[in-house]
């Protein structure tokens, strides 16, 4: 299981624990990740608001770099849903339009690069749920997360518009993984609802409403797990503002999926950088203490 790895900008900054836990978990599961040399920003949600061509050229630059890496034939693993969609969009669009690929390549030539259309971009959840699979997590299980109730939060852009590995409206790919970790499922219908993405930066009132509804529905769970740095930040960083607006407490532990699964296969909270999360409650850590390591 060899992959090229595109961390994206957030994973170097506000989402460093997502980077650390992804690498630690994947390596422990026997996967091999090689970072794409010289990668640059995919444009996030900003390029689309500014220029159509830039929205395609910024991710295409990274696909061209990935394509040039030897040995060829490795899928590109992407943990951030926004980066994933930006890279994936270029693959999908250039596959059906060679005219578009030529246009992109005309721009890339300014950087001495060219994209042939031979890459395959995969979201982390796709790789974990289908390449590794719940059975492998169960085989590596060292610390069953017994009694911990988890709400799986998928967000939007790993599911839509390209339905690659899960149902885009009622996703379930995390459920077998949570079960394999020995944890309980918090049943809810908010898993594929939008967290507001960058609204928190430009239209906070609107963002708080969306996040508030998700945190409200998570009540009763011990943790929400995410697979995107923007979802994670929205759910973990504004809990106080949401509480002030709605008048109800909504304190909730928010973890990245590889952190949860990493704990279950016996990686330490330090290795998974739980210290960097903005919302891990004392109650959660106490429950974690009570899960016995079987080893």
């Amino acid at each position, binding site marked *: 299981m060899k992959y090229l790895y595109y961390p994206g*900008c*957030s994973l*170097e*900054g*506000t989402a*460093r624990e997502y980077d650390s836990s992804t690498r630690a978990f994947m390596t422990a599961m026997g996967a091999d990740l090689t970072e794409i040399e010289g990668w*640059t*920003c995919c*444009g*996030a*949600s*900003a*390029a*689309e*608001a*500014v*220029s*159509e*061509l*830039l*929205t395609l*050229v*910024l991710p295409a*630059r990274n696909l061209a770099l990935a394509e040039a890496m030897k040995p060829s034939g490795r899928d590109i693993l992407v943990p951030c849903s926004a980066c994933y969609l930006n890279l994936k969009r270029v693959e999908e669009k250039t596959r059906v339009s060679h005219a578009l690929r030529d*246009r992109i390549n*005309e*721009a*890339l*030539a*300014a*950087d001495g690069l060219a994209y042939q259309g031979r890459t395959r971009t995969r979201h982390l959840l796709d790789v974990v749920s289908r390449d590794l699979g719940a059975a492998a997590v169960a085989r590596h299980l060292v610390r069953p997360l017994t009694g911990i109730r988890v709400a799986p939060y998928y967000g*939007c*852009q790993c599911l*839509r*518009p390209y339905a690659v590995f899960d149902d*885009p*409206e009622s996703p379930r790919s995390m459920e077998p993984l949570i079960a394999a970790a020995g944890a309980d499922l918090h049943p809810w219908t908010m898993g594929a*609802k*939008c967290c*507001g*993405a*960058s*609204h928190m*930066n*430009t*239209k*906070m*009132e*609107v963002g708080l*409403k*969306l996040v508030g509804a998700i945190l409200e529905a998570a009540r009763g769970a011990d943790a929400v797990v995410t697979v995107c740095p923007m979802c994670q930040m929205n759910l973990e*960083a*504004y809990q*106080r*503002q949401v509480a002030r607006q709605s008048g109800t407490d909504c304190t909730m532990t928010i973890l990245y999926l590889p952190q949860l699964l990493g704990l279950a296969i016996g990686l330490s909270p330090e290795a998974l950088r739980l*210290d*960097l999360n*903005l919302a891990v409650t004392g109650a959660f850590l106490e429950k974690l203490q009570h899960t016995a390591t079987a080893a």
Partner: protein
Amino acid sequence: MALAEETAIELGTMPEAAEALAEIRAMVQPCIQCGTCTGSCPNEFAMDLTPRHMWRLVLLGRTEDVLASRTFSLCSACYMCTLRCPRGLPLTEAIGRLKQLAAPRHLPHLRSGDLFYRNFIDSVRRHGRVREMEFMSLYFAQMMNPWLPLRYAGMGMRLMRRGKVALQLPSRGSGRLAKLFEKVAEMENRP
């Protein structure tokens, strides 16, 4: 509404806006006004026009009214409408085009989004990667709203304490991706 009038006057001097809108209109031409997009949108509660209504105005070529509304700027690209539209229209992408159409016009009611995205992209041009703290400080400085940073101050402190962001002075220089950006601009400005 005063805002709409102000914006309309500004747009009146920009006939090319109508031309660009024609392209977007072609993307949504088969719309049957069923309202599925409105019913699917998580941000609809905050919009002045419902998504269905906005598409109607796009079809009617009412550029000023579309750009004077906040509807497209409130789209968080969740792709639910795109997924569900019975005509299979690329709605989220069409909204992206509306954002691109509005961006260079510096419409007063879209200011916070404009500045945010412009500073973000500028950070990418200079460094190749986003320096989160740098572009956030530039964004706050340009918003010229002294209360705004305070809303994020608590979070900023928590991020700094964890070493997730560092205070960085904006750096100068032509930029790591400058050539690529120039080329893209040149290609987009071709007649």
